[in-house]
Structure formats: C-alpha cells, structure tokens
C-alpha cells in the first residue's frame, strides 16, 4: 500500500456498516430511503446516527422506493446534498425515477447493494438489478471489498456534484458477500471526509433563489427532447475524466489509488478474465495459483461501468490472446451478459483483438468457487493453444443441468 497522506483508522466492519459510516461522515442534507434486504442495514445504521444526533440529516422514512427516489429528486432539485440506498426490487420500483434524476442532472448518490431480481424471488447477490438500470444516465461504480465500497461512497459525492458532471451516481457492492461480511479496512477522519466532499451549492435550485424561479421537469416535445438527451450523453461521456480526477484526488488523501479498472498481472498475460465485484478476490487467488504453474493469466477488474471505458479496456486487452468475461447477470435473448457484450463491441474495431468467450455465473447467490474460474482460464488456454475455437454461445458456470 502506498504511503497514506493522512491519519486513518483501521476498523472491522461489514460493507454496509462502512457505507453507513461514509454517509455519516458526509452528513448529507437529506436521505430518503426504504428498507430492503440486503441493503437494510445501511438505512438502519444511518437511522441510528440520526437518532443519536451524530448527523443532522433530514431522514425521510418513505413508504416505498419509488417515493424514496421521488423525494430524493425533490430534495436535490431543492438544492440539497442527497443520498439513498437500495437493492433489487427496490431499484426496479425506482426505475421510472432513475432516468428523471439523470435528465434533471441531479447529483443524487445511491448505494446499490447488488441482489438478484425476482423472479423467482431471491435475496442473494447477482448484478441483475443494477445491470437492468445500466442505461438510465447514472454513473455506475462497482466495489470489490468493504474498503472500496466505503471509498467509492465518498468519491461518488464529489463526482456527482462536479459542475461538469451533475449526474446521479450508483455505487455498488455485492449483497451479503460484501454487505454483510465483516472486513478489515481503513477509514478516514470525519474532518478529512468533510473537507474532501466540501460544501455543495448548486447553480440552479428551487430554494436558494426563489426570486428568480426555476421550473424543473418541463414538458419537452420533439423539438427539444432529443437535444436534452444529447446533453445527457455529452455529460456522461465527459464524466470519465472527472471520475479519474476525483479518484486521483482521493488517492492523495487516502493513499488508495483506483482507476477506471484494475489490471492484475495483465502485462505479460496470454489469457485474461474480466470480472467486477467481489469475485475479483477469488480470481486473484486462482490467477496466483495458475501463474505458479506457468499459466500466463491476468485479470481486468472493472470499477467504472458507466461511463463505459471502452477505449481504455480495448487498449488494455488488445494484446491478450483470449479473454473470458464473467458476468454476474444474464442478458437473456442476447449474446451473453452485459459486460461481455459491451467489451466485445469495444474491441471490434481494434486492429489487434483477443478471442472472446462470455460466461455467466453466480446468479441468485450461487456460490462461485475457484473451480469455476479455473474452468474459464482452462477454456481460454485451450483457445490460445488452438485446441478449441472460441465458443459463440454464452457458458453458464455452476448451473445444475
């Protein structure tokens, strides 16, 4: 670990408690949230901070996730710094509001604790909830560990509120695996977080200057709608630089440097696995073991899924001979999972590009052990050796036949 720039405390906490702690340190103006497994312990923990006067946030105990996001939109348009949190069905119920939040350019920050979408109903981890909301104009950050979930929460505020971004941010971590397991991580001082996120003062709001009234959410007919959508595209495309600027600033404070993605032993690799979330830890373990056996394998762990860093990924993977993308959600009716499809598309115009195979794994919390990752790497090695052609069809790992 790089030398830390500031004093930090080592804690043992769950990922959810870490996120609630980050929220406490941010002390947002408004939180509107509704409980849902496995996110619930975030809103419970935050409720304790409110009940004990540790924060002076207006905490709205709404009657649904739809109202949670609706109230967040009202509060953010009003000029407040706003946070919320959800999972799965809650995110699905918010769906209508997600694109309104981004279109109104409201910097709402939401912890999304990834959980499988119904049906059948299931409470465990996969990424189908946030992947279902991947095209709603939100910035999507994925965390592998409680440390990353905590860090991303703090960075998300700065990214969302940056004057050149002004977009909502969804910060993901894996349900139960990261949300409920106790992890060791470092936390910043309250004062450092406060200073890092700074004061929020939007240029336009409902409350700050009522004498120059602003109308939010007007009716845009064909003559204007398209241009507003274009502005959204420009904003989210342009947010990539700001995400990295904030990430670098955070590294100066914390000593923890992140990127758009992490490259692990990728430099000289023949084959690579792409993952996001907690599976990266298991993947690192398998890579080290296989490297010891002489297999030249590496990993690309995606952190920023929106804006999708297509160019950078293409660059990082162009010299690899075979790439396996592991998706913890399935986009049924298409080629495979969303990350696979997008990375394949990102590489299409590269002069030099790897063979690719798509894998879906761990749906509904199905355990993902090293064996599944070994299977993927074994497959890729066979492709490199010319023993088999890349499979066009997606492979469902760990499913009972």
């Amino acid at each position, binding site marked *: 670990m790089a030398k830390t720039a500031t004093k930090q405390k080592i804690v043992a906490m769950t990922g959810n408690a870490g996120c609630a702690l980050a929220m406490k340190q941010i002390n947002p*103006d*408004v939180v*509107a949230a509704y409980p849902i497994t496995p996110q619930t312990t975030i809103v419970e923990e935050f409720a304790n901070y409110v009940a004990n006067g540790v924060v*002076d*946030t*207006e905490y*709205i*105990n*709404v*009657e*649904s996730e*739809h*109202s949670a996001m*609706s*109230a*967040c*939109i*009202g*509060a*953010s*348009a*009003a*000029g*407040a710094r*706003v946070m919320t949190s959800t999972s799965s069905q809650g995110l699905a119920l918010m769906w*209508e*509001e997600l694109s*309104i939040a981004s279109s109104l350019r409201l910097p709402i920050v939401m912890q999304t604790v990834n959980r499988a979408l119904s049906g059948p109903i299931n409470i465990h981890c996969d990424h189908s909830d946030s992947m279902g909301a991947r095209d709603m104009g939100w910035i999507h950050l994925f965390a592998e560990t409680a440390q990353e979930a905590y860090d991303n929460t703090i960075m998300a505020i700065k990214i969302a509120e940056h004057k050149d971004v002004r977009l909502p941010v969804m910060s993901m971590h894996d349900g139960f695996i990261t949300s409920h397991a106790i992890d060791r991580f470092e936390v910043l001082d309250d004062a450092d977080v406060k200073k890092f996120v700074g004061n929020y003062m939007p240029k336009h709001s*409902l*409350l*700050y200057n*009522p004498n120059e*009234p*602003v*109308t*939010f*959410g*007007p*009716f*845009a*007919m064909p003559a*204007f709608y398209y241009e507003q959508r274009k502005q959204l595209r420009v904003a989210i495309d342009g947010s990539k630089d700001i995400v990295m600027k904030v990430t670098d600033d955070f590294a100066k404070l914390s000593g923890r440097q992140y990127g758009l993605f992490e490259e692990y032993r990728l430099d000289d690799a023949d084959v690579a696995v792409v993952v996001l979330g907690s599976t990266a830890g298991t993947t690192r373990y398998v890579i080290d073991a296989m490297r010891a056996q002489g297999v030249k394998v590496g990993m690309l762990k995606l952190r920023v899924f929106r804006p999708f860093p297509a160019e950078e990924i293409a660059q990082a993977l162009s010299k690899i001979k075979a790439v396996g993308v592991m998706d913890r959600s399935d986009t049924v009716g298409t080629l495979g999972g969303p990350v696979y499809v997008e990375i394949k598309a990102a590489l299409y115009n590269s002069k030099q590009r790897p063979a690719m195979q798509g894998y879906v794994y761990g749906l509904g919390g199905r355990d993902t052990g090293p064996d599944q990752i070994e299977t993927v790497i074994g497959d890729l090695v066979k492709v490199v050796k010319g023993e088999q052609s890349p499979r066009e069809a997606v492979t469902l790992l760990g499913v009972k036949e």
Partner: protein
Amino acid sequence: MATIKELSRKPELLTGGHRLCAGCGASIAVRQVLLGANDQVIAGSATGCLEVSTTPYPFSAWKIPFIHNAFENSAATISGVEAAYNALKRRGKIEKKMKFVAFGGDGGTYDIGLQSLSGAMERGHDMVYVCYDNGAYMNTGIQRSGSTPFGAATTTSPAGKVRPGKPQQRKDLTQIIAAHNIPYVAQASISHWKDLVKKAEKAFSVEGPAFLNVMAPCPRGWRTPNEITIEISKISVQTGFWPLYEVEDGEWKLNFKPKELKPITDFLKPQGRFRHLFKPGNEHLLETAQAEIDKNWSWLKKRCGVE
C-alpha cells in the same frame, strides 16, 4: 381573510398565457389556492393537464419555483423539497420562510398517486396537497378514474348497449385523507372562491400537512360549454354532489348548508357524459345516483353535527 379588492392586487403566481383550455377548472383552482398563500411558495405538480399546459419547454407559466417529476409522486417529490428546506434552514444556508404545495389531478391523486400522498401525509411534512378534481384522466383523453361519478361515460367506461357508463360509485378521497388525522382537510369548489381562498389560507398557515380537494370541472370531459364551468361547479355543491366541508384538527364542519338539496339531475343534465342516463328505461340509474347522494349527505351532516 383579504377582501376581493385586496386579492385582486396580489400578484398572479400562475401567469396567463398557459395552454389550458378555455373554461378549464384546473387553472382557476390553482390561482385561487395560490391567493391563499402569504409566504414564498414552492409548487409541484403531478403529470397531467396542469403540468403539460403550464410548462411547454422552453416556457413556464410559473412565477414561483416549480417542479414536475412524474405522475404518481407529486406528494413524495414535494415532501423531498420540504425536507431539503428544513435541512438547509437548520444549517443556516437559507433564511426565508417558505411553504410548499403539490398539485395533482384526480387520476394522480385518487389512483396512481394515493400511496405517495398517504405516505407524505402520514410523515407529517409541512405541505399542502391540492387535488384539482375533474373526475377522470382528462389529459390522456377522458378515461375513468376512482373519482369518476357513477354512470359517467368516459372513453374507458363508455355508455354502451349493456353498460351504462361507469358502474361504480366514486371513492371518497377527502374522507380517506381525513382519516390520516392531519391538521387540516377540506373540500372546496372554484365556484365558491371566498370559501376556497379561505381554506387555502388555513391550509398554508397550519404547521404540518394539509389537504384540499377542489371541484374543478373539465368542459372537454364533461361535455359542457366552456362558459358554464363556474355555474356547474356551483350546482355540484347545491346538489350535494360536492359538499363543502372542512376537518380542522379533527373537528368536522359543514361550510354550506342549504335547506334542501337540489336534485342530482340538475348536476347531471347539463353534462354530455350523463346524457344516456336520461334515456327512457334508465330511470333506475338516476334513482341510484340520487340515493347515493342522499346517503352521503345524511352521513356527512351527522358527522358534522348538523341536523
């Protein structure tokens, strides 16, 4: 309350030039409600006629800060604005006193927005919710809502050979909100402007949630001439279809007590949506409509302690 002379000098917060129809009850309701506000007001509206007609980008008829979010969440949205106000005021970032009002039509209030409204009322936000009730989804072309009266022909409850318009009675939303035991609930009509402005003033002045259900006819949906909007509103009150009453800290008060109600046919007859009820053979439908009014009126009088 201010005199009509004084009211006439108050600045219009919803300016003219919006695109609501001639004879539309909604804008009249909004203007009368806003006349009852004595502090800075922040407004919101559900998706509907009021919203699309007052905010066709790049124009806005609102001379106060305004937010439209979606159809079913005007109450939740304004509850968020009010929460932001509390937070920013507590943190010394704003000083001015402000009040908050959410508007919605009956579709956005009785039906799709009922949960959001109930939640906001229960949580006790300092806000006024105003339903401009025209008894159908008018913005999308006159479809039946939970507020559509018995027998009314709408595009989703048409009067056909075997079904004479909407077969169900209306939902009584005002009573539902009164059951939330909030500080102030009232039913008002744009025909009784003095009563309405006074009620709006009370609604804005209480600390905590207040709800106004306002009769606001729609000439297109009711199949009435534009110029009788106020008149037909008045008849809705005189027939007992739309009693004027208020529930102030749990005290029920009837604000308009005619010696005798006019027959409900006085309200139904001028409206094209009830035309089929007057065809021979449909007398029993008119009787059903009258019986419902009589029952509700008698219940309300008892509730308000009036004989």
